[in-house]
């Protein structure tokens, strides 16, 4: 089960993140999760928004000269308590998958759970392994209901 993620390229300069999030915010686009990958010269902003807003956000960004892309990531639910994440990571480790990046939702669909957004080197295989190991994954509908 995959959910949509929006990635945006930003130069590593003061004000670029504010300008980009303001552009989306003014159009009523709600950021449900956000992470920034930074390097010395550039950053990649990754964000999850309601799927009904994805096309609008993408067009808005492109019209304003940003480079943005939509891709698919897995969102796994883990218990919101100490060691809650490690059981998920153990599954990943055992199956020889590797995590390219991971971040979490700002809010939870259900109390007591935390939602981890993951990009793994082999998404298809990860989905199968998570299913076999009983890892709860959020669907796009779950996210849209947040």
């Amino acid at each position: 089960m995959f959910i949509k993620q929006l990635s945006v390229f930003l130069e590593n300069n003061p004000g670029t993140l504010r300008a980009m999030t303001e552009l989306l915010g003014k159009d009523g686009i709600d950021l449900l999760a956000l992470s920034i990958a930074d390097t010395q010269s550039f950053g990649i902003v990754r964000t999850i928004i309601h799927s009904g807003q994805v096309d609008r956000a993408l067009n808005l960004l492109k019209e304003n000269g940003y480079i943005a892309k939509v891709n698919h990531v897995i969102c796994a639910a883990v218990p919101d308590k100490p060691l809650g994440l490690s059981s998920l990571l153990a599954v990943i480790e055992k199956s020889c998958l590797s995590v390219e990046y991971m971040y979490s939702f700002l809010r939870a669909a259900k109390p007591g759970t935390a939602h981890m957004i993951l990009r793994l080197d082999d998404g298809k295989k990860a989905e199968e392994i998570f299913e076999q190991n009983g890892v709860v994954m959020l669907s796009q509908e779950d996210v849209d209901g947040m």
Partner: protein
Amino acid sequence: MSEKKHLIYRPERECMSRDELHAWQSEKLRETVQREYDNVPMYRARMDEKGVKPADIRTVEDIKYLPFMQKTDLRDYYPFDLLACPQSEIVRIQGSSGTTGKPIVSGYTRNDVDVWSEMMARTLTAAGCTKDDKVQVAYGLGLFTGGFGAYQGADRIGAMVVPMSSGNTQRQIMMMKDLGVTLLCCTPSYATYLGETIREMGLVPGKDLKLKAGCFGAEPWTEAMRVHLEELLGIDACDIYGLTEIAGPGVAFSCLEKNGMHINEDQVIAEIIDPATGEPLPYGESGELVFTTITKTGMPMLRYRTHDICSLTDKPCECGRTFARMSRITGRTDDMLIIRGVNVFPSQIETVLVKTQGVAPHYMLIVDRVNNSDTLEVQVEMTEEMFSDTVGHIENVRRYITEQIKSVVGIHAKVTLNAPKSMARSEGKAKRVIDNRKL
């Protein structure tokens, strides 16, 4: 006469009267034009097109009737179509970066290597070199003419050659100290770096080192840099000028008067032209430097446009040489950059970027000098094709561009990725280069 002791390698040539020189140049020019016309179809066609026959060229003054040659000719007739002799007569190939990724190469006959060696022997002698000297060659030894040129010149004089090639600063200094090197040949920026490292190591020039002079060239430098270098290393810093197409370093050199560079006029004829019209300009006026080789047999160059801007003077020099002097190069008529002694054309970088899939040819070159070493930053605008949600993917693209630039241009560039449309779009010719070096 000045109080300085001026050594001259071949006074009968270097101090010949201007009249004798004129007669010599005219005779050698006639021979070269005939040779070129008979052996190089491209140049023959160019002369025919202009309606010029070898018989029309009688004296040096007639040179203005000859068609020009350009760097692009060396690319278009790469590698051997400009040879005026059979390939079997060629004993050496040297090269430098061209305009589009392929190097340009020049073929030397035994005679040409001799001519070049003598020009470098004169250069080193003018800096005070004799057979008792020890010459450290810290120019790269390879296709680049710097290393072999300095080696051959010092060898011709009978000096002790220390062929270090470029880089490995600690080892350069160790050899300099242990062997008692007296003369250094390298780029002025590397000489400065060596000097500063020597000082940092606590070594004192004049006490721990025996250096007395240096012949520096292959990149533009200033009078202020010369003064700094002379103090830093306690030496006489002399200037060399040259280019692969004509021979290599030693085409012109400064004597200890350090007031312009004597052109080896018994081997080349120098002209200054108006770069826009191609019309010859008189001594003293600034314009584009044009060379005609008159003693080379492998790949003679007739009216080769250097794109370097300078002026000439035939006023007598205190050193006793009669050869005309050229001023420092004050600029270029094209967009060529010299970075760490390497010729770099923005079009080469553009070619790399265009070939890298998905990279828009919107780029900017930022050249600077940090710690006396030239730096090149290539800023590239990000495109959708290059973009990904993972850093690793984008870094791979960046690394690939860096490697391609290194392999095509020959130098390391720092590649940075910028936001789309972040670079100014100008009408007409875009400004692609920001050169922050204080030259």
